[in-house]
């Protein structure tokens, strides 16, 4: 048997695939079929067109390379950031944006923490607010207007509800408005802030 396996590449590859798929099935595929992996908090709402546009910019600029969006249930972490993250908060995030590195602080409870104007000043020049910050400035996104056609396609792909008026309002908004709108909604299904 053993000698056969190492002489038969196709059989070998099939056996290897089966061996690889066991762990895959138990830890990934089977859980996916259970409701445990698809929780949704009762007051979690789909993103609005403006918020989704902001989330797209968050992803485009790779904010998740330096900011996490998950508060671990550890004492000092809850003290620093707020209520620990719940599984049902992320049902509209494709993909999840928990991140893996905190070069900057966690943002899971950033929504409603500061007024919009705070974010405008901070994005414009993070070092003016925190001299020792190493965050790049993002004031330049103010220059970019939103494209309602693109955003409509993105809303459709996500199957989020929207109206003609929602899209019409986007025309006067900048990318910075959208990014701040997104930031202000992060985590608010739990904290209720807004």
């Amino acid at each position: 048997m053993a000698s056969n396996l190492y002489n038969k590449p196709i059989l070998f590859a099939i056996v290897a695939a089966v061996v690889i798929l066991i762990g895959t099935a138990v830890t990934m595929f089977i859980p996916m079929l259970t409701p445990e992996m698809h929780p949704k908090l009762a007051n979690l709402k789909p993103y609005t067109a403006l918020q989704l546009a902001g989330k797209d910019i968050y992803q485009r600029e790779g904010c998740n390379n330096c900011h996490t969006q998950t508060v671990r249930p550890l004492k000092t972490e809850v003290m620093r950031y707020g209520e620990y993250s719940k599984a049902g908060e992320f049902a509209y995030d494709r993909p999840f944006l928990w991140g893996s590195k905190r070069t900057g602080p966690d943002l899971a409870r950033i929504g409603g923490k500061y007024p919009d104007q705070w974010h405008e000043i901070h994005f414009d020049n993070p070092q003016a607010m925190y001299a020792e910050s190493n965050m790049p400035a993002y004031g330049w996104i103010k220059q970019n207007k939103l494209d309602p056609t693109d955003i409509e396609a993105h809303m459709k792909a996500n199957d989020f509800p929207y109206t003609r008026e929602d899209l019409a309002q986007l025309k006067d908004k900048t990318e910075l408005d959208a990014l701040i709108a997104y930031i202000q909604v992060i985590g608010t299904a739990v904290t209720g802030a807004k």
Partner: protein
Amino acid sequence: MNDYRYDNQTVKGFIVSSIFWGVVGILVGLWISVQMWMPSWNIPPYFTFGRLRVVHTNGLAFGLGIGAIFGISYYIIMRLTKRPLLFPKLARFHLWFFNVAILLAALSLLAGMNQSNEYAELEWPLDIAVVILWVIFAVNVFGTIIKRKEEQMYISLWYILATTVAVAILYIVNNLSIPAGWNKSYHLFAGVNSANVEWWYGHNIVGFIFTTPILAMFYYFLPKSTGLPIYSHRLSIVAFWSLVFAYLWTGAHHLVYTPLPDWIQTLGIAFTIFLIAPSWGSVVNGYYTVGNDWSKMQTNYLTKFFILGITFYGLQTVQGPTQGLRVVSQLIHFTDWVPGHVHMGTMGWVTMTAAASIYYIIPKIYNTEIYSEKIANIHFWLVLIGQLIFSITMWITGIMQGALWKATNPDGSLKYTFIEVVAKNYPFWKMRTLGGVIFTVGMLFFIYNIYMTMRKGKLALAEAKA
């Protein structure tokens, strides 16, 4: 030998391409390491940390890593099957297609087209290109091995076959997404489920790009360059099957203390601990192989690359499981410890082993000797020192960050604000750049040595013809 000449040119093409993308990826790495302590080095819109970091990781994983894997695997397969590639023209097309895809990948990431899944950032049209590249590779791998002229398949071929199958499964599943225009898509999976799929992929793509194909190189080139047979065939069988079995259970150790169900986390951590055994199976096999004659460390310049490479593999595979434990994860997760860990693997194990394999292959292809063993030794020491400065600095700063984030005053309040902890990182981040510079200089010695070896080979050939 004539039969192999065309394929050897393809192998060489992949090696040169991977070195080229490696230089790009390393220079971008240096750049972003400076951005960490000098934000003015961010040049929007294309060259901010958030965009460049993914160019760095993708450029090195896909450009340097996969480029080297394609070329070196083709070389190994031809030797172990005792025949040229079954489809030589297809392999040459593969080479060109690979370079076009990597170029487009780098440009699209600079443009901000990003799926936001770590190590799966490329948008859907490029995902399709990657799948085509992989299928082309698989056709030649399977075709050539099926039509082999050597009955037994050696260990390296097992690892290459497993890599071919596993990467296909991982890449396709995690990149399933809902397109919303030609340059934007949304993950088919949402929230917690998306996290679980992504880290099933993220951990295992490391396993099947930075581990199994590199082990294929290790098991082939270590005996070849030292003349010493692998210590234990049985150990390599046990290590292979337990490795490919256990790897796929472990992705959740990236999600410790997140909202992912606890049982998946615990299962992931348990299998991560188990994974030490097969990893060290290969480490021990390597040590005992050279243990037959340790003088090879002095007399054969490649031996120390392989032995140090497998040593860093061994250190990685103990460090990784340690940081998966809840008690360690709560301290060092999200800190600079994590890039420290990754870079010991990539700069220590992967780059050292791949560079040694290239040192072996290039003179063989040109039918000559290496240009300078002395330069190879300088290369060795520089990349070793650079990597150690990098990794050790990042461990220290990672532990410090974790401890300061947790520190409390006697009244129970937090002792440091976030920005106060950032401020304490600067000396370490500068030190990391220094480590990176030393490593890069080492790599430049390597490239010079390879270039001069190729030149020497070409000149000898021209002379022979004249």
